[in-house]
């Protein structure tokens, strides 16, 4: 009962705070927040990556619909997964994403600038895409980057990132499906949890995976 109450009040607070925020405002706010945090603490984050992971977890992750993403990435494997596997998968997948993009964020935060496109939002809709173009300061053609968002309760949450029409969710779905068929969901989760998801020595990993 207390838990119910806590949940309810949390939901109420969330509603009161964010009800007015449009999806593109949310994405813009979060990304500029992250960008300024990186600019301020660049050296500290580089020295202690775990600190940066924690920051991303605090600032960015709450705006992602993690359970929904986990479910759509697992696709038909979701049905066969136990409740415990689902939770573990969502957690491990989220951590994997943070870890694999953290380096790129720290590396390139200064060399691109997001140009946001106006959002056309149909009234009463609960699904939208926020478009932007990443302008590269070296003059190379801009990179199209979009965020698919939907409403969870009263709050807009990101459920896919699309780079040059390549959807993160679709891309991982194909990979996980092949891998789960080969070695099973538990093995896949274990591999993600261990942090060793790139296959050293396997075809395509000649870039040399630099473990965390």
């Amino acid at each position, binding site marked *: 009962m207390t838990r119910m109450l806590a949940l309810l009040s949390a939901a109420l607070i969330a509603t009161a705070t964010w009800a007015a925020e449009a999806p593109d405002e949310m994405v813009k706010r979060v990304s500029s927040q992250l960008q300024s945090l990186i600019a301020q603490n660049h050296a500290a984050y580089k020295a202690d990556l775990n600190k940066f992971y924690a920051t991303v977890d605090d600032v960015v992750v709450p705006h992602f619909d993690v359970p929904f993403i986990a479910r759509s990435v697992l696709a038909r494997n979701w049905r066969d997964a136990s409740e415990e596997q689902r939770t573990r998968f969502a957690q491990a997948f989220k951590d994997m994403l943070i870890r694999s993009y953290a380096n790129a964020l720290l590396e390139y935060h200064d060399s691109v600038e997001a140009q946001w496109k106006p959002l056309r939002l149909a009234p009463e809709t609960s699904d939208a895409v926020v478009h932007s173009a990443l302008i590269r300061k070296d003059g190379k*053609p801009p990179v199209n980057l979009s965020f698919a968002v939907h409403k969870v309760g009263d709050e807009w949450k990101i459920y896919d990132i699309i780079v040059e*029409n390549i959807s993160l969710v*679709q*891309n991982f779905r194909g990979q996980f499906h092949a891998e789960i068929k080969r070695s099973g969901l538990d093995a896949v989760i274990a591999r993600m949890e261990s942090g060793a998801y790139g296959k050293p020595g396997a075809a395509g990993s000649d870039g040399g995976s630099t473990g965390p």
Partner: protein
Amino acid sequence: MRSCILAVVMLIAGCAHSPTYAPEDPLEPVNRAVYAFNNTADRWVLKPVAQAYVAAVPAEIRSTASRFLGNLLYPTTILNDLLQGKFAQAGRDTTRFLLNTSFGLGGLLDPATRIGWTENREDFGQTLAVWGVGDGWFLMLPFLGPSTNRDLVGRGIDVFAHPLYYAPPEVAIPLEAVDIVDTRAQLLGTEQVLAQQFDPYAFLRSAYLQRRRGLIYDGNPPPEEDDWGE
């Protein structure tokens, strides 16, 4: 009657056969072998050459070379604009080409982009798609990388629109070589992303097909049916 029985048998067989997850890739085992081969070739030849190129040639000269080669190839885009009925875009691309070839000193500079006339990318694979040709199978070509039946045909046709095809070999071959090395050099660093994937081959396949889809629809593909298989 006989064909009826055959149809029933095929129907049953169709049901019994578990659906493959990647129907777009019936040649997967072969493609994976080619992919492994390409990686080895890349590791021992192309990547070291590209790294040497980046190390030896200053960035400014490298981007000048990229711009020059990109401009040289631009008539392909214009031709495919026309073949796809994008006449306004063809006009803009022609102006862009003329501008960069003249004021841009043969494409060494890119004044068109500075005034907001950004580069478009059209090729005969996209033209075929606009004409209604489907992807066909996903293919992993030796040395050339990911493609599809349709894009392979498109590549073959585009060769004829490439100015270097009509140039004498002593001009064409060095320029072609620089183009290959330059393209590879721009991809240095992306192996990191590939290496961190669960299944780099599946990643590349999905990325290639989605990226092509984006190009075919000029960045606004109709939403795909998102089949979760639930």
